[in-house]
């Protein structure tokens, strides 16, 4: 078995009381005081933009002294958990907690907005009555979905969380309602629904004066209303056209005094109107957007482009006093021979009747996604601006019928909300400790694979000296070599890549796990278990060519595909790397999935079979590719050498170039209409019913 070298980035993030200082969880030791910050409110009654960089760093911005400028008005300390939580749960803190979307709501009933920030540990409420709510379990998968609104009509907002629950292979979602009472956040209702929750919103979707919970599980939208006894019941449920729904919004988009339900999905938006008949609420579609993709964008293969609606906001941004819908849509495909993966912003204006018309579409933004759109009048000029991801502020240029964008000042932000707050006091002042967090990327290794693993130390608070990191295997699935790593110091705010160590995955059953111990001068010591997923071994080149080729040919005839024979060797690294290239290059993997039946053949022992196809691996080297049509006719032989690249592993071969070559042999697609006509004729002739189904290769 050849040894594969891969780079797996492990990021160890030590946010904390300082690696060079006290260990935050050790009993009897003093907790390092965190300087007070952020207890003063921003300008009371003035709209501010609160931004998050997704790593617990919150800032509030108000209109600056200069026109169209923003000034920092408030900054919160990096959020954490209380000391008791940390002491009890430090072993769970194995990932970097990420902020979920920020929310603005009055949860303490003082008539002023509070700022709600959530991560995998809990909810932090910044306001006149600051509060912290610790979740029962730390969520390694990140923050739960969160939304807030007055569910019971008492003018105090409840906070709603939606979490994914896995039980075996069953996926469900847990809806939890939390309210602030007597200065304490507590659960007041729970409800479980089947399916993975893809979106959550809170708003008066039934137009009864009280907010409802709207949740989507893939294509199914459920409206939950809170009853007098506190329980949640489904007021309505309907299926959306697209298979994945995200996001949702409840808003009055046509200014008729009644809320509509906005459902974003795969590059489209549908607006549903709540109708009550015989005591039942239904949500017929009253408007549907076109597919929000630049018509010039094509799919990476024969399939069309991919589009994901990622954020929705409603407000008047065009100045016509009608509601506008602002959408962020990620487009994935090809444009002018280039791969594109970029979002655009779409503004739709209500026509005063029943429809929305496109008012503006942005050029592709230099963002990986649109995670948040906030609308508000930050500069007090009577016209709303909107802010994307807390990062880009868009102002209307009425004369030019466009929107101009400018940076908010937070280039790393991923979220932003606009609100007016009376106070933004923080909970947990002097007793705060900040635990050690971990972020681990690429936590997967294949059986029989040896990877060169790089671990990065991030230390934002205080210089750490004499740092030693010891990585050991916690069970037989993993073997570690060179796992003792030392650095003399990591400066404040520093990030340091440690020397790589070697990780080998062993065949067997059970999960893989590492144990990472970090020590530093001053008595700092922390031990954290790190799960590592050991994936089944990579596909190998098979000796029994004849049987596999026959199966592939039969499948190719049935599915109108080509057959690709990869001649290779399990004993040679280049052959192994080509398998990785084919798996890890998205366009190439797509072409293979759509257009090819793949046969990986061990060349040794199958020399005669290769010769029948005039394949010449013996002279041109391995790996080697033979392309055939579904009936076994040779289309091409390709030595792999022209596709060689300079990297290792999946990067050892030029997947893009290989894809361009293999895509040329895509078979002509069959015309569906004549097939249908023939099938209908036959059904009629034989007095049968036509069972017509629609599918796709994915």
């Amino acid at each position, binding site marked *: 078995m050849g040894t594969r070298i891969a780079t797996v980035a492990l990021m160890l993030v030590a946010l904390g009381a300082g690696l060079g200082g006290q260990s935050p969880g050790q009993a009897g030791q003093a907790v390092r005081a965190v300087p007070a910050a952020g207890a003063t409110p921003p300008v009371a009654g003035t709209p501010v933009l609160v931004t998050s960089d997704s790593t617990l760093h919150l800032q509030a911005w108000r209109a600056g002294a200069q026109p169209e400028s923003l000034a920092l008005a408030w900054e919160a300390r990096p959020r954490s958990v209380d000391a008791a939580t940390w002491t009890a749960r430090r072993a769970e803190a194995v990932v970097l907690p990420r902020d979920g979307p920020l929310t603005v709501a009055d949860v303490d009933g003082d008539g002023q907005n509070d700022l709600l920030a959530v991560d995998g540990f809990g909810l932090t409420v910044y306001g006149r009555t600051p509060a912290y709510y610790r979740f029962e379990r730390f969520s390694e998968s990140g923050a739960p979905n969160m939304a807030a609104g007055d569910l019971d009509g008492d003018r105090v907002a409840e906070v709603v969380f939606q979490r994914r629950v896995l039980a075996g292979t069953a996926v469900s979602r847990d809806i939890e309602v939390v309210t602030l009472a007597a200065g304490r956040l507590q659960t007041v209702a729970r409800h479980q629904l089947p399916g993975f929750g893809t979106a959550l919103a809170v708003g008066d979707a039934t137009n009864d004066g009280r907010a409802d919970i709207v949740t989507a599980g893939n294509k199914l939208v459920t409206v939950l209303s809170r009853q007098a006894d506190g329980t949640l019941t489904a007021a309505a449920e309907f*299926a959306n056209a697209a298979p994945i729904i995200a996001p949702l919004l409840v808003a009055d988009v046509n200014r008729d005094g009644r809320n509509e339900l906005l459902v974003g999905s795969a590059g489209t938006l549908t607006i549903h109107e709540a109708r009550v008949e015989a005591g039942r609420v239904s949500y017929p579609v009253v408007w549907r957007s076109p597919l929000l993709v630049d018509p010039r964008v094509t799919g990476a293969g024969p399939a069309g482009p991919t589009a994901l609606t990622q954020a929705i906001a409603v407000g008047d941004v065009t100045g016509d006093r009608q509601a506008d819908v602002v959408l962020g849509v990620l487009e994935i495909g090809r444009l002018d021979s280039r791969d594109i993966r970029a979002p655009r912003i779409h503004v739709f204006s209500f026509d005063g009747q029943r429809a929305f018309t496109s008012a503006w579409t942005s050029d592709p933004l230099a963002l990986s996604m649109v995670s948040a759109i906030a609308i508000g009048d930050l500069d007090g000029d009577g016209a709303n601006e909107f802010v994307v991801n807390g990062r880009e502020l868009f102002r209307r240029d009425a004369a030019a019928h466009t929107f101009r964008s400018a940076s908010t000042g937070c280039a790393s932000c991923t979220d932003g909300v606009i609100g007016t707050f009376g106070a933004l006091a923080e909970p947990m002042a002097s007793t705060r400790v900040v635990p050690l967090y971990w972020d681990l990327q690429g936590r997967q290794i294949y059986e029989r694979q040896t990877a060169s693993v790089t671990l990065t130390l991030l230390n934002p608070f205080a210089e750490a000296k004499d740092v030693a990191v010891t990585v050991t295997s916690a069970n037989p699935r993993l073997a570690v070599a060179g796992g003792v790593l030392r650095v003399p110091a990591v400066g404040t705010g520093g990030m340091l890549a440690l020397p790589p160590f070697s990780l080998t995955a062993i065949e067997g059953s059970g999960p893989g796990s590492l144990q990472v111990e970090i020590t530093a001068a001053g008595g700092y010591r922390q031990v954290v278990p790190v799960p590592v997923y050991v994936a089944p071994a990579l596909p190998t080149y098979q000796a029994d060519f004849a049987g596999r080729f026959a199966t592939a040919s039969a499948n190719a005839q049935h599915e109108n595909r080509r057959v690709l024979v990869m001649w290779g060797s399990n004993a040679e690294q280049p052959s192994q790397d080509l398998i990785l290239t084919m798996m890890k290059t998205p366009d190439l993997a797509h072409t293979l999935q759509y257009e090819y039946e793949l046969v990986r053949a061990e060349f040794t022992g199958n020399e005669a079979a290769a010769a029948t196809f005039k394949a010449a691996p013996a002279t041109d080297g391995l790996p080697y590719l033979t392309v055939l049509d579904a009936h076994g006719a040779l289309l091409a032989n390709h030595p792999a050498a022209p596709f060689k690249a300079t990297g290792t592993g999946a990067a050892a071969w030029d997947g893009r170039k290989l894809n361009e070559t293999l895509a040329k042999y895509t078979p002509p697609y069959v015309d569906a209409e004549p097939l249908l006509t023939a099938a*209908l004729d036959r059904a009629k002739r034989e007095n049968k019913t036509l069972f*017509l*189904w629609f599918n796709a290769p994915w």
Partner: protein
Amino acid sequence: MALKDIAPVLAKDFVTLGIDTDRMTGGNALFTRYSPKGGGIPWFVFLDGDGKAIITSDDPAKGNVGFPAQDSEIAHFTVMLQKVRRNITPDEIEMLGRSLVAFRDVKLPPR
């Protein structure tokens, strides 16, 4: 549908045709014609000889059942079969429903 116990039963009442919406010319247009509101695939419809839809995989309560796997989805599939059957017997419809349950339970570990 190609399994040896299943195919002969379906062949008693059905001509079958699969359309690849991504890899057939006009496949997506055909899908839109029969499922104008769009939506997910797999999606299927039983057509009479004139091409008129008799019943689709859209469960009125739950939406498209896709490949029927959950109990409610299999229930809708059997409703579809009951609506169009001519030669397939009720016992055979029950067998087809059971086969879907068995397929699901083999594919997925027990819950």
